[in-house]
């Protein structure tokens, strides 16, 4: 009796350390944030002293034009970044999916940007974008072309370019992996059926890569909503609010405006948005698996 009991409890015992760390490191801060988002909370107060205000912070944000602006910037940033990165990343993968001497070196070069720390990327691009001594404007000037006010007039475009530079490789390697796992003989059959290289891409390669591409795009989208360091270093959200993405506004609300409750509520809005995307991704995976299982069952039944 005793041993049976002990045997049943052993797995829980082994899982306990991980569960406790998860609870402390993940659930506690998250709960703290949700708890705090319902309070009028100043950094000089402990959370117990802060006044409970119910949904006030959420309602305030719902009507706050600055929050709308930030959300708009974030959505715009995420949309352009993911769209352009997908097109370039998948395009590069399609171009480089072949055996040419030196291709492995080239592929390694392509994924280098992804390995650089975001703060370093931000600093690097800030220098390159510098209005007078930056690489871009010096080059333009040398060629006799009028210079561009990168981080002033075109700030959002400039940070989008920097993000594309850093994250296109991510899509590139995933797309390349998807391409290389495609059934070779189906592509050969397509060649015999008369498909031109372009038709092979449209009718065979892209449709077969689609499941991987959808998951990749969702992953990038989730990441793009949380971007902070690169933009913080490059523009600090300016000029004005033109590049103030949500993560940045949250940090400023907490530190500069000293409104921890509002910042927490804003974080929760972002969390909800990301949760929806994540759930969407899982749902897509589930749907795919269910479809595969159904096909399989159908075959089994007939056999």
């Amino acid at each position, binding site marked *: 009796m005793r041993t049976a009991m002990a045997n049943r409890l052993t797995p829980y015992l082994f899982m306990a350390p991980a569960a406790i760390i998860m609870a402390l490191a993940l659930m506690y801060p998250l709960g703290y944030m949700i708890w705090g988002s319902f309070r009028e909370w100043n950094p000089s107060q402990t959370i117990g002293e802060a006044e409970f205000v119910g949904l006030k912070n959420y309602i305030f944000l719902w009507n706050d034009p600055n929050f709308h602006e930030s959300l708009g910037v974030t959505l715009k940033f995420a949309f352009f970044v993911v769209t352009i990165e997908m097109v370039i990343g998948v395009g590069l993968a399609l171009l480089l999916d072949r055996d040419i001497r030196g291709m492995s070196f080239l592929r390694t070069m392509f994924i280098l940007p992804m390995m650089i720390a975001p703060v370093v990327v931000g600093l690097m691009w800030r220098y390159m974008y510098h209005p007078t001594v930056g690489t871009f404007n010096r080059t333009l000037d040398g060629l006799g072309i009028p210079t561009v006010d990168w981080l002033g007039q075109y700030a959002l475009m400039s940070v989008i370019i920097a993000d594309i530079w850093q994250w296109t490789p991510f899509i590139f390697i995933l797309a390349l992996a998807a391409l290389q796992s495609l*059934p070779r003989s189906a592509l050969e*059959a397509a060649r*015999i*059926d008369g498909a031109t290289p372009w*038709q092979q891409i449209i*009718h065979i390669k892209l449709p*077969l890569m689609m499941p991987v591409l959808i998951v990749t795009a969702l992953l990038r989208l989730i990441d793009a909503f949380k971007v902070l360091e690169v933009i913080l270093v490059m523009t600090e959200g300016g000029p004005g609010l033109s590049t103030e993405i949500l993560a940045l506004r949250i940090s400023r609300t907490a530190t500069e405006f000293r409104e921890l409750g509002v910042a927490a509520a804003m974080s929760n809005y972002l969390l909800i948005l990301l949760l929806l995307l994540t759930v969407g991704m899982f749902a897509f995976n589930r749907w795919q698996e269910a479809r*595969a299982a159904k096909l399989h069952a159908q075959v089994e039944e*007939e056999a």
Partner: protein
Amino acid sequence: MPTIRLDSLVKRYGDVEVLHGIDLEMADNEFTVLVGPSGCGKSTTLRMIAGLEDVSDGEIFVNDNPVSHLEPKERDLAMVFQDYALYPHMNVAQNISFALRLARRPKAEIDAKVKEVADMVGLTEFLARKPGALSGGQRQRVAMARALAKDSGIFLFDEPLSNLDAKLRGQMRAELAMMSQRVEKNMIYVTHDQIEAMTLADRIVVMHGGYIQQQGTPEELFKRPVNKFVAGFMGMPPMNFLDGEFVERDGEIFVSGQGFDVRLEGEVARKASSHGNKAVTLGVRPSDLSFDGAAEPARSLTLDVLVSEYVGAQSVLLCKCGAAQVMVEINSETPVALGQTLIFAVNSGGIHLFDRASEVAL
């Protein structure tokens, strides 16, 4: 139908030459089977004809026009792959019609064609299914239908049945044989299975080590193999080989070795006496040995029975003759006990002789 001719076709991967000058001419409306063990170059040859592999040297002619520089789609051919190579995201109808849709044929024509070939291979009720929802045999039929729909003059098969289980393979082999009689096309079929080759081919081309060993009708290859490799490859169970020497006694010629001493007669004896080299290999098919205790010693083999494999009406006996193993195919009703030493008569015409050094048939 377009005729195909290979002119000293060579394939090299880097410094390694895998095909050493293949010459082959296929007659119109002929079912040609390239057969050989894996690595013999048969698939490479087929893929070069298809245009999926570059030609290193030599030329492929279709209707006397060189085609080795052309893309696969410009060669007027259809191909069935070993793993079927279906488009997994398209349903059966879309798979079948892909080539026609790329060629921008009118919709009515495409629909009619899909219906016709689906009917021919028995897929009509599965047209809306995706390949993932089909069994192996059905996928094989889709691959066949897709090739048929193209209306090309040349039909290539790359081991199309080897992914199927034994029973289905036999069934599909019969269907293929029927189809090849109905549709008039030049077919080239690659397989490692000599039974498929024997049952389907108008002409068999046996390949080994990047060379053509022999080509001819199934009967020619079975009865008159040009060398030891072809003799051992065609026929199941395979031919028995016994190493021996020519010995002349009383004006007659014998082939003699460990555990056997067989007198040669007629044509075979004449060939043997004019052959300079004494070291030879005696080849006897398992079906050319028959249990006969009263057989003349000089026209029979005395064998120790080791194992009997019962396969139904026939049994295959695994026996020992000296140090060599010999297989015998006999009627299962024949009373044979394991461990017995028995005498098996060699049927007249059942003796094949090969030079032991060059392995070429005498």
